[in-house]
């Protein structure tokens, strides 16, 4: 039983109701149930979370660093796409 046999899982933690799950880190576990428990012990032991998702790392398709320019560069010089011209009403949080 070594870590090498165990698949890698990505952990997403929702810190409070109303917020979305955020990537917290990754861990090794033999199956999803134990991954969830390991995630609880590793990432929520100081009261950080109210909900956890675990996802097999192999199930994630990531953008490639080589494609960084065609993927992201064109968005950088179009300030009109940013919603910076609206006034945010007082009291609105998490925007």
């Amino acid at each position, binding site marked *: *039983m*070594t*870590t090498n046999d165990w698949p890698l899982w990505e952990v997403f933690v929702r810190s409070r109701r109303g917020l979305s799950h955020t990537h917290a880190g990754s861990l*090794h576990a033999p199956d999803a*149930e*134990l991954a969830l*428990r*390991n995630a609880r*012990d*590793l990432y929520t032991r100081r009261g950080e979370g109210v909900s956890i998702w675990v996802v097999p790392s192999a199930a994630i398709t990531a953008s490639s660093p080589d494609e960084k320019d065609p993927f992201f560069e064109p968005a950088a010089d179009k300030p009109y796409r940013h919603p910076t011209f609206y006034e945010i009403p007082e009291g609105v949080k998490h925007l």
Partner: protein
Amino acid sequence: MTASTSETATAAALALGDDALVLSHRLGEWAGHAPVLEEEVALANIALDLLGQARILLSMAGDEDELAYLREERAFRNLQLVEQPNGDFAHTIARQLYFSTYQRLLYTQLAEGTGPFAPLAAKAVKEVEYHQDHAEQWTLRLGDGTDLSHERMRRATEALWRFTGEMFQPVEGVDVDREGMRAAWLESVGDVLRRATLALPEGPASGAWRAGAGRQGLHTESFGRMLAEMQHLHRSHPGATW
């Protein structure tokens, strides 16, 4: 409160506190040695939960540091089950399964009562439910895993079986229905073992020695060594603080 009821309460707090303290130390021994890093953190988490319970319980009986670090072996009142060496991972899991199932039933009853342990029990029962879940998950995977893991898990449940009877001996000052607890414990542990393709061991659930066991201050061979390691720092540097 009369002197005798307060003495009873002190003895009861010692028994429950020593269980938590000694098991906490045993689990802490896995630090740096666990099969995988994730499991090391899980065991350390459980150890810390138990240490927190031990601190509250021992403080009810006197000075927590004095009680933990300056008592001799014969003055400890913990169950012999919790002092058993970690062995292989299956032994640790079997010990966890037996003890956490008992502790959940015990704390559930204490939390419903009005005795001195009700507040602690109400808080700690949630911790212990997780300990039990952890032990159950691993018992299922080891028992219903490979031939080797099945064999080791079977060996562990059988080796520790003779220490399980002591959990249901009455402790003065701990007002619970022990017979009801034993029945519920057998059902719960039996169910987990069956699902893990194992069976409840058949041997006697306690040793033949009539002098008693851990609750009477009689401990097994490895306990002295554990205690020496646990206490030597405090005894070498009395009163030292961080």
